[in-house]
């Protein structure tokens, strides 16, 4: 029998958690995807608080040149597993109950969405904290690699992420 002073198990929370993760090889409209995700939790099941993040490809490369496109490579199988594990762990820590992660792979043009993270929770604090933490986690621990294709014809793999 567990003591009331012991940390509560997250097992039950994990079971109740709804996590949806997709990789898109072509462009997706984040607001359309978000609307569908919200419609699926309407009524009494709707989250009282939501936090969203949409990341888009900027039109300038790391060296200041105009960017033609960003190429996103991933590790099939491991990337999906890692995204799910990161989402599950992060949502359990913050005790949130809904999570949506959409990520592009392949060639992405400036202005196109590259990532969408949405979190549904009972309070704004856990929703916002979980959204930020999960975004940072996937940037550093989900196997994706970016290559810039610049308008001057040069191309280069990036060795890190942009500053927070």
């Amino acid at each position: 029998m567990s003591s009331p002073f012991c940390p509560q198990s997250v097992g039950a929370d994990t079971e109740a958690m709804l996590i949806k993760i997709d990789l898109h090889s072509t462009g997706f409209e984040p607001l359309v995807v978000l609307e569908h995700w919200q419609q699926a939790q309407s009524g009494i099941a709707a989250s009282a608080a939501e936090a969203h993040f949409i990341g888009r490809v900027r039109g300038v490369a790391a060296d200041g040149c105009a960017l033609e496109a960003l190429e996103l490579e991933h590790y099939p199988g491991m990337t999906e597993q890692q995204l799910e594990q990161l989402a599950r762990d992060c949502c359990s820590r913050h005790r949130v109950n809904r999570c949506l992660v959409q990520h592009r792979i392949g060639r992405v043009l400036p202005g196109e969405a590259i990532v969408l993270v949405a979190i549904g929770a009972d309070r704004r604090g856990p929703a916002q904290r979980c959204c930020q933490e999960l975004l940072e986690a996937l940037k550093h621990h989900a196997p994706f690699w970016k290559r810039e294709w610049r308008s001057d014809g040069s191309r280069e793999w990036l060795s890190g992420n942009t500053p927070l």
Partner: protein
Amino acid sequence: MVSVVAADVPRVGTIRILLFAGLRERAGWGEQHWPANPGCAAGLTPRELWLQLQLPGELGSQVRVAINRQFADADTPLRAGDELAFLPPISGG
């Protein structure tokens, strides 16, 4: 001496080695199958394979290891049938 087997489909008794992104391009290959040496008491480790394959860069600070699609320590003994990946710096999101 251990020799590298040309990559194609998964092979019994080998370790499948994968490289990605800039590391793959610098090395000039993306996949190889390496004999697992079933007779050896101690299994090869990713660190030993990294050195034997003479891969560019620095294992640990720049390049991470995944075994069977899970992050792993570079000194983990490998077994026949394992999928080993060397992962250059990650830049997602």
